[in-house]
């Protein structure tokens, strides 16, 4: 068991290190921050001074070693725009993002999973087809299109909700719905197929044959098994709570991590982009680890198998 945890942690660290390195190299090769942050007609000496101040004149591997050494001690550098620590800029945006991604996540779970179960139990019925049609529409329509549609209806036509900004809780409603609907659609489809797979298994017939009432066959025998594959996608959704709203935040001018990412990339504000990517990597890796643990809890098979290995 210790070996299992140790190898998982080592793998997680490796993943995070890889993401940081990759982002570092790509960002340094993709454009000169000095040109973007200084104005175009800035004198060459000023640009050179800027490069020197941020260490951009040194070879990339030297920059990388310096960055990595600092990062290991918790210093992720400062924003090139306002000089504040990058990590601070990111962390102050996190609550804003969570304010829309957590309610959206609850919608995905609360709507998507029951809809998928319902559709599976009424396979090929009119209601199943309707649910799945809505679901296909829900996840094929890109989120910015859905966002604009919602704005058109609820802000422009009906005038019920604000179309952008973050001044009140009403401003959060449309972003939450946009995120929630698409995720619920994906989850509904996934849950349905997981349920159908399980309902066709011999042990479901066994449960019925031994006299278990159908409702209990579904809740007691089918759901625990269908939960196993569903957990994967739910874990992915948890992992993207921090950075899964880039497009929606941009459309609704919601000042979260996603918008900070877009702005920082555009400005080549390297340290900030790096810090955001690091945060994303950590949350994804943590979610993955949680999925693994949940798997072991839901399904006795792999846990036992690995424990012996």
């Amino acid at each position, binding site marked *: 068991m210790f070996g299992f945890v140790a190898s998982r942690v080592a793998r997680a660290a490796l993943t995070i290190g890889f993401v940081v390195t990759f982002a570092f190299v790509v960002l340094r090769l993709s454009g000169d921050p000095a040109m973007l942050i200084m104005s175009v007609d800035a004198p060459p000496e000023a640009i050179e001074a800027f490069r020197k101040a941020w260490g951009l004149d040194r070879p990339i591997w030297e920059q990388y070693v310096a960055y990595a050494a600092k990062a290991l001690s918790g210093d992720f550098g400062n924003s090139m725009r306002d000089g504040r620590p990058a990590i601070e800029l990111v962390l102050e945006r996190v609550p804003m993002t969570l304010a829309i991604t957590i309610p959206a996540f609850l919608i995905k779970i609360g709507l998507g999973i029951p809809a998928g179960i319902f559709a599976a139990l009424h396979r090929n019925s009119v209601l199943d087809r309707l649910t799945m049609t809505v679901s296909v529409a829900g996840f094929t329509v890109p989120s910015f299109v859905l966002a604009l549609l919602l704005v058109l209806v609820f802000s422009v036509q009906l005038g019920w909700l604000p179309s952008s900004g973050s001044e009140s809780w009403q401003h959060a409603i449309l972003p939450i719905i946009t995120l929630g609907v698409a995720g619920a659609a994906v989850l509904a489809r996934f849950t349905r197929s997981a349920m159908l797979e399980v309902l066709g*298994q*011999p*042990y479901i*017939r*066994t*449960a*019925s*044959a*031994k*006299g*278990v*009432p*159908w409702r209990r066959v579904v809740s*007691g*025998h089918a759901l*625990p*098994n269908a939960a*196993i594959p569903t957990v994967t996608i739910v874990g992915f959704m948890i992992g993207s709570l921090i950075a899964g709203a880039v497009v929606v935040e941009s459309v609704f001018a919601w000042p979260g991590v996603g918008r900070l990412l877009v702005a920082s990339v555009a400005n080549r504000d390297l340290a900030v982009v790096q810090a955001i990517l690091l945060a994303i990597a950590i949350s994804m890796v943590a979610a993955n680890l949680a999925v693994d643990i949940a798997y072991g809890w*839901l*399904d*006795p*098979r792999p846990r*036992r198998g690995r424990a012996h290995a």
Partner: protein
Amino acid sequence: MDKLVEIRGLTVDFAQGGRSIRALHGIDLDVGAGEAVGLVGESGSGKSVTWLAALGLLPGTASIRGSVMLDGRQMVGAPRSMLETLRGRRVAMIFQDPSSSLNPVFRIGRQIGEALGLHRGLKGAAAEAEAKRLLDRVGIANGARRLRDYPHELSGGMNQRVMIAMALAGEPDLLIADEPTTALDATVQAQILALLQEIRHESGMAIVLISHDLGVVAENVDRVCVMYAGRLVEEAASDTLFDRPRHPYTRGLLAALPALDGPRTRLVSIPGSVPEPWNLPKGCAFAPRCGEADEACHGSQPPLVPVNAAERVLCFRTRYFPDAPASQPQPVPALQDAAFREAVL
């Protein structure tokens, strides 16, 4: 013998891609209290479907007609709640692949305990003690520890024993064993069959043993029903059936069975294959593979008729060589043949 189950004219149709495919063409079958009945046939012959239909375990795409009486209660078309009270309690069923027939995420003890709770109201320590006793009953040693095992930690044979223990939990009057040993090794197969026999003698529970293997059925049942393409084609006491098979299909099955004694001989297989249910011939479904079929066999469906009090056979031809040994069909006297056909048609 008291009739426990009485099946009359049971038909099953599956809706498939807008059309309806008949899987079962009117089955008449009785099972007496405490009796052991064998149901033999190739896959797709309808032997499992018969009992899944009787218990209402077929998917919604199946439409079931006819009558299945259990203790004078009609099961076809009965509300789900009524069927649920009968399943496991009056009629239990075990299946072909024991390892996937047990829920992989629950411990054995919980799965047996569930049946005990449903049928006998046992919970907690009482349920655990009874589950342990049942494991002991089906020959699983160290039951207390096994109750904490998951199905994947047990062998196929052990899992089938668990399935049997679970079936016994409801103290049913009838156990349907649907190919209970097909997925198991030969030695384990014999052990499971012996266990079923033992339990039957001890408890007086009736057993329906479904198998594609006449050899498996032979020593374990009082009466054998042979099925082919959704119909019962021959029914007889097991001794009679093995000594004097009447239907050409039964004779073919027996000829394909290796003899345990006597000289080694080449096994004879039945030519051709079972027709698809959506592509049945006009007449007797076995006619295309039958060495003795004539025009009438190809032209119309023979009925299942009693030969005597204990035997029924569905064939135009075989009534004329009732005592024919397994692999030597005798020539049919033409005159008698015509007379018989007149009588039947």
